[in-house]
């Protein structure tokens, strides 16, 4: 049975949409990443984008942020087509977005404090004392107030990502995009981050988009989930809906099974044939 759960099944949540992706097609060279994908991101909710590696989750965030342009289709931010925006309009729209990059992407020539203060200094006229207080509050939220004077090179990967999270939410944006926020975090930090993302979403009312492989953590905070596979939306719905979906593809992904419709191996000739007679071409 096809895993698509109709959007009519969750009408309340999807009535108020902040980002509407319609018939999105995008390819890199010969490889089709998205083939007519429709995704609606509800306002003020946590939406998770999940799927196997290479299914285009991070690419989707770049398309939403206007860093990539679709081959066909539209990415609408409150009705405005992001790919049709002029350069200035696009940068204005991005001021309403915060993004947590997978690598953290901290500015290496600035301290932790200056990294978090950067968006505030660029986009606001707040006095230095107030910027300092906001930075302290954001760093306190991610548990790194004590690291305020460290340089990015002195942080572990997990710490760098938490500083990047503090920077992403510094301006209290309308939309926050998280690219693999839980990767590389220890169990304590992971638990804190899960709660933090949920709390931020509830307290500030912004719309969150999480791209993640961590199924249990994501299912525990997401209001709505899209599962991508083979360039299409394999399933979408609330966590409860997805747990009951009767689709081998979705079950394999949600339960982390090695065998199923999603292959673990990259396409290759027969293993035995390769071992016995093949040569590297």
């Amino acid at each position: 049975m096809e895993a698509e759960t109709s959007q009519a099944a969750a009408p309340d949540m999807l009535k108020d949409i902040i980002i509407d992706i319609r018939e999105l097609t995008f390819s890199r060279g010969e490889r089709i990443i998205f083939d007519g994908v429709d995704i609606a991101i509800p306002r003020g909710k946590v939406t998770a984008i999940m799927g196997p590696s290479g299914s285009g989750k991070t690419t989707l965030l770049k398309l939403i942020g206007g860093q990539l342009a679709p081959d066909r289709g539209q990415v609408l931010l409150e009705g405005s087509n992001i790919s049709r925006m002029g350069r200035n309009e696009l940068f204005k729209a991005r001021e309403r977005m915060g993004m947590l990059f997978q690598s953290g992407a901290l500015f290496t020539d600035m301290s932790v404090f200056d990294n978090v203060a950067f968006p505030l200094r660029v986009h606001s006229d707040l006095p230095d004392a107030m910027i300092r207080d906001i930075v302290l509050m954001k760093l306190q939220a991610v548990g790194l107030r004590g690291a305020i004077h460290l340089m990015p090179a002195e942080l572990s990967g997990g710490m760098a990502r938490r500083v990047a999270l503090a920077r992403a939410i510094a301006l209290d944006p309308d939309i926050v995009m998280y690219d693999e926020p839980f990767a590389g975090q220890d169990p304590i930090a992971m638990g804190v981050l899960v709660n933090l993302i949920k709390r931020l979403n509830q307290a500030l009312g912004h719309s969150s988009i999480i791209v993640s492989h961590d199924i249990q953590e994501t299912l525990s905070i997401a209001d709505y989930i899209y599962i991508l596979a083979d360039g299409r939306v394999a399933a979408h719905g609330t966590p409860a809906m997805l747990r009951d979906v009767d689709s081998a593809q979705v079950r394999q992904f949600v339960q982390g099974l090695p065998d199923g419709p999603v292959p673990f191996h990259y396409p290759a000739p027969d293993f035995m044939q390769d071992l016995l007679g093949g040569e590297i071409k």
Partner: protein
Amino acid sequence: MIDRIQRLGHKTLSKVAAFGRSGLILMHALVARPQPLVMLPLLIKQIYFVGVLSLVIIVVSGLFIGMVLGLQGYTIMVDYGSEQAVGQMVALSLLRELAPVVTALLFAGRAGSALTAEIGLMKATEQLASLEMIGVDPLRRIIAPRFWAGFICLPLLSMIFAVVGIWGSSLVAVDWLGIYSGAYWSNMQQAVDFTDDVLNGVVKAVVFGFIVTWVAVYQGYDCIPTSEGISQATTRTVVYSSLAVLGADFILTALMFGDL
């Protein structure tokens, strides 16, 4: 055969596209509403990194090249009894050709490669993408101050190179080999014309500054964001900008002095 033509066509098209892209990048970086309060501190910081930190290599090279010119000039000209004209020969060589060209080549190796590597690394570590998502245009914030810094610094470094070179030559020719200093300096003063020699040399340095810095920032911004990609881009910066400088030097020399 068809394959070869196809490959050649593809390569030509991609070069033309890259040239167009580099022009667009420069245009977006430079054509914008001026923000002196934001840009000035960034520009000063880059002038320090690109210009001040290049001073040592420029001064030392200028000194030695001037000394070599003085020595070679003396040993050749002494046979004709015209060693008094060493100052004139050294000044004209440095002001017209050697100062702008050698400074540009050294600048490409010292500052151009550093600019490319820095911008490329910022791209590889997603710092440029992160700036974009914060709503800050990296072309304005990262590329523009670096471009202007190179453009401003290269003519200044070229002038310093020429001055140090002339001084180095006088050390050898006057202080060591014993040419009469009055003849050395007065010959130079008579032979050097401000517009034809000094100004033309500065114009060359301005053009070279534009070329070297444009190549450097474009190669960094457009590189493949991997360690291999950055390494190739850095090499390309030095090779392309050096060749472009030498080519442009011939064209400029022909325009400036071709009617003599």
